[in-house]
């Protein structure tokens, strides 16, 4: 007979005829022990659950809706606006906090190191300065990396892939917790102060999302506080809307780009979009950038000035030299091509590195050591570059924050030091705006080369840090180099202002690495404050994306894939129409009867080998064959609440005083339902019956067996489903389609591929 575990061989597509199938069964059967393989990109992890965006329209829900009148729904709408405003304000404040702390700590560090270098330049012994710098960096990064590695690993990296997954409907454990926020904020501060080649902009998006998730729920489980407000929003659908608002507010605070923030959320989560939501999200973004702006302007001493809308400010690009002419557009497109190629190279290198890290550097202490080493090497490379550079620029009239003299004549500073001896944000702005001639081409070339590898090496470390600023910096450096060589070639034409090319190079490089399109264009446009740059930036980003996609995919998608996340893209793979629901679904399905024995429910829930979350409810026929007509769908979380409150048929008959269960009881348990092991069910109670008809979702979405994969996919993606029941023409449950069943089909290099499931 067929046992469930012996149905197929992994990683192979269907269309096997009967003979082969039999043959296979013989080879498969002996292999009962778990099949171990090294980590690779063609896996889906079991760790990731799906979020439940489908509203369970059970009787409790209907009752509640009947009870709440029209006016109450209006207050719900007002509450949504209030929450959005609060999201904006808090995101802005967090951004301010990060900015101010980074500025002060980094300033302190650079002053100490500069003082030391100045001292030792006269007397000799610069190797001590090098040691001091490297040790300072390494120790700061050590703290930053330790809190991430040991306390909350999900706070590592920029957080954009995680938020992308969340908006896609994947539940990443711990991703929107308050603890994550705290670790993230501290981690970002420490890694930027530690001098790594990272930025603080990407993590702002994650921070905004966590803030949104926290505020909209009106409580924090990390703090064990429940403020008893906003209880209506305690479910995945509402939370997702607020999280997208938070992500938008984060982008807006990071770049001073409210519209870009809205479009970012739109790009990542467009399947559930509507006008009112857009308008609310825009409101949150605007509030966020305004809060940041006003607080920072008070901090900088010129209140009411409102001159710093984002964490990074590209400065103004509005003098006439910065304008562009139509002849330059082909040059910009060429820069886009270069950016695409360099971006692809960056991603490919980072891919190998990340693979190595997942396979070999998985212990937290190793991760901390690695981060420390990268920090020390970053400082060393910077120091050696500064040491070897003979590019001196007069100190007068320049706006260098920490001018290092080193071997330059008195009254001059080392121009390599402006790039390396500074926070990356400041370096980017310097590259955009320093007058022509501030850098010599050799300096820029060496800087680009070194920083490229450093940034590539840094991304994926166990520290919280973004990749936006390093990409911009690499791009700005080679863009400026490009501009300088262009003006050499054309014998100093007026239009070849290097700052403009630095901007285009930055856009090209960033586009080549992250492959964002619309939102990135708008973000760049808003950050430069110049609408006329929209067209060339769009062209550059487009070219970079096209060229880059030819080689490898974007950095974020790549990391999502390496994490084995069941991510659903916009569309099903194009060549998958021949696959039907029958081949996609999982079967046999564990079904529950409408009136089920408690013991059976507990056993099913406790079974670790089949960790299902949704169970079709079928008609409880006494003369039961195994399959009967589908009546509804019930979730694991609901069952657990039912068991916890002991809503059994017998008990209801015995004691009429028992309180009727309300929707509120389910909401209070959200989002962390207790595990089944924590619920005690006595031997007597196991014999009781439980009636599910009142709690199940009576109208789950179903598809017939013959539906093609793209059809199933569309339904699943657009509605944000978690479970899709496959039925035959007698309405009997045949199988169940979940996220992992759909996400495993992917268009690879040789056509359609199938990923395998793995425990990670």
């Amino acid at each position, binding site marked *: 007979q067929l046992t469930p*575990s012996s149905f*197929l061989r992994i990683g192979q597509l269907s269309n096997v005829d009967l003979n082969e199938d039999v043959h296979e069964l013989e080879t498969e059967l002996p292999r009962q022990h*778990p099949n171990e393989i090294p*980590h690779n990109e063609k896996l889906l992890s079991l760790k990731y659950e799906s979020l439940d965006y489908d509203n369970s329209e059970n009787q409790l829900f209907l009752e509640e809706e009947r009870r709440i009148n029209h006016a109450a729904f209006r207050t719900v709408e007002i509450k949504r606006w209030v929450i959005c405003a609060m999201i904006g304000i808090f995101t802005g404040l967090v951004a301010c906090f990060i900015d101010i702390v980074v500025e002060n700590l980094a300033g302190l560090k650079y002053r100490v190191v500069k003082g030391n270098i100045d001292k030792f330049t006269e007397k000799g012994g610069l190797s001590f300065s090098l040691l001091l710098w490297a040790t300072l960096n390494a120790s700061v990064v050590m703290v930053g990396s330790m809190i991430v590695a040991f306390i909350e690993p999900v706070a590592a990296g920029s957080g954009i892939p995680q938020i992308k997954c969340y908006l896609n409907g994947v539940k990443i454990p711990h991703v929107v917790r308050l603890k994550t926020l705290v670790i993230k904020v501290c981690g970002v501060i420490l890694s930027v102060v530690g001098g790594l080649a990272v930025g603080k902009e990407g993590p702002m998006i994650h921070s905004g999302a966590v803030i949104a998730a926290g505020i909209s729920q009106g409580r924090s489980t990390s703090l064990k506080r429940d403020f008893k407000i906003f209880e209506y929003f305690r479910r995945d659908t509402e939370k997702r809307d607020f999280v997208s608002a938070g992500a938008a507010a984060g982008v807006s605070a990071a770049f001073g780009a409210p519209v870009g923030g809205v479009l970012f959320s739109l790009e990542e989560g467009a399947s559930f979009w509507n006008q009112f939501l857009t308008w609310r999200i825009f409101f949150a973004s605007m509030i966020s950038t305004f809060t940041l702006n006003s607080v920072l302007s008070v901090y900088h001493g010129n209140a009411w000035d409102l001159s710093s809308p984002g964490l990074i400010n590209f400065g103004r690009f509005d003098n006439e030299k910065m304008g562009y002419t139509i002849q330059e557009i082909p040059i910009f497109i060429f820069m886009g091509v270069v950016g695409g190629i360099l971006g692809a190279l960056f991603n490919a290198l980072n891919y190998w590195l990340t693979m190595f890290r997942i396979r070999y550097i*998985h*212990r937290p202490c190793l991760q901390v050591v690695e981060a420390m080493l990268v920090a020390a090497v970053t400082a060393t490379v910077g120091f050696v570059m500064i040491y070897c550079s003979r590019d001196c620029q007069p100190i*007068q009239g320049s706006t260098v924050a920490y001018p290092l003299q080193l071997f330059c004549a008195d009254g001059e500073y080392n121009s390599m030091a402006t790039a390396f001896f500074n926070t990356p944000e400041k370096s980017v702005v310097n590259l955009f705006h320093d007058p022509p001639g501030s850098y010599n081409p050799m300096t820029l070339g060496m800087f680009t080369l070194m920083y490229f590898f450093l940034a590539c090496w840094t991304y994926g470390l166990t520290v919280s840090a973004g990749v936006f600023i390093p990409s911009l910096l690499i791009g700005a450096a080679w863009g400026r180099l490009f501009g300088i060589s262009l003006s050499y070639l054309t014998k100093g034409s007026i239009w070849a202002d290097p700052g403009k090319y630095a901007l285009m190079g930055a856009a090209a490089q960033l586009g080549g690495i992250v492959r964002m399109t619309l939102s990135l264009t708008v973000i760049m446009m808003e950050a430069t404050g110049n609408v006329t740059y929209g067209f060339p930036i769009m062209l550059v980003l487009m070219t970079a994306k096209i060229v880059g996609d030819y080689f490898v995919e974007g950095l974020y998608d790549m990391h999502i894939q390496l994490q084995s996340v069941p991510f659903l893209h916009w569309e099903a793979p194009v060549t998958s129409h021949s696959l039907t629901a*029958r081949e996609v679904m999982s*079967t046999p399905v564990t079904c529950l009867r409408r009136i089920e024995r408690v013991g059976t429910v507990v056993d099913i829930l406790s079974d670790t080998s089949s960790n299902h979350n949704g169970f079709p409810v079928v008609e409880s026929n006494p003369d039961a064959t195994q399959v009967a007509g589908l009546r509804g769908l019930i979730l694991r979380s609901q069952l657990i609440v039912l068991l916890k409150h002991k809503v059994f048929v017998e008990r209801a008959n015995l004691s009429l005083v028992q309180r009727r269960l309300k929707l509120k009881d389910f909401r209070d348990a959200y989002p962390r339902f207790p595990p089944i092991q924590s619920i005690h069910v006595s031997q007597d109670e196991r014999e009781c019956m439980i009636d599910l008809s009142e709690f199940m979702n009576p109208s789950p979405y179903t598809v017939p067996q013959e539906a093609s994969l793209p059809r199933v996919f569309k339904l699943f993606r657009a509605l944000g489903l978690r479970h899709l029941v496959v039925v035959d023409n007698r309405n009997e449950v045949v199988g169940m389609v979940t996220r992992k069943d759909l996400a495993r089909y992917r268009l690879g290099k040789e056509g359609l591929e199938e990923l395998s499931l793995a425990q990670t």
Partner: protein
Amino acid sequence: LSLLPALALALRPAAAGEPRRPLALEALGEAGELAEELWGAGLPGDLPELEPECRQLLAAFAEGSAALTGCLGRRARPVRLCQACHRHYRLLLAQYGNIARAVGNSSESHNCAKSILTSDRLQIVVALSEFFNETWEAANCANCLKNNSEGLSNSTVEFLDLFNKSLTCFEHNLQGETVYLSPNNYTEVCKNCNETYRMLNDLYNNLQRMNRQGGESGHSAHLCIDVEDAMNITRKLWSRTFNCSVPCSDTVPVIAVSSFILFLPIVFYLSSFLHSKQKKRILILPKRIQSNASLVNIQEKYS
């Protein structure tokens, strides 16, 4: 009818042959005279000549600005703008203020400010005064003048004294030697003037620090141009011409330390590659129908 007095007023000076043209303009004579004759002929047109008071003010302003321009030009290199020209500048400011405030003796609205400053498109007086103001701002002269901008501030005077002292020191010590000596032979200067140079340098740095603290608003981080330029010249002389500041370059230890640090990651990655246990993933076999055939099997079994 009410136009008549105004017209008379306008024509009077011209009729009296009054207009005193500056000598320099004599060359332009013909055309100007023609124009005046046209006026004299009483052409309809509201072309009022300036009142004498206003003309005096204007002349004063012209002279003031000429003087200031001359001063600025002469003191351009080496830069001594603020020291030399602040009196001219102050005077000019006063003259401009006079124009802006002055009211002509006619009770009509024709005051000097209006007719001089705003009655034509070019507004040359305003433009000139703006130019001077901007130059003054750019040079940051206010920074080395006293608060009421009378005379140089104490710190500036002190700095300039020290500056002169070090220049004298340079001169003294260079006297024995020829200018064409190879750069290595400036050791005398370096040794003898080191102290003065250090003092000058320190004073300059102090001034800068004080300035940065004082100017909370942040934008005027510069000292005034005279001081900056003086320091610049001295520094250039010191480190470029005399080659006095020779930093100790200790390349060997730096190379040693940096190669040690750069070597660490290689060790780390190699050791973790060799010793760390590779993480394995356990594959899970999903429950799935493989083909139509097996589906048929199931169907048969169930029904």
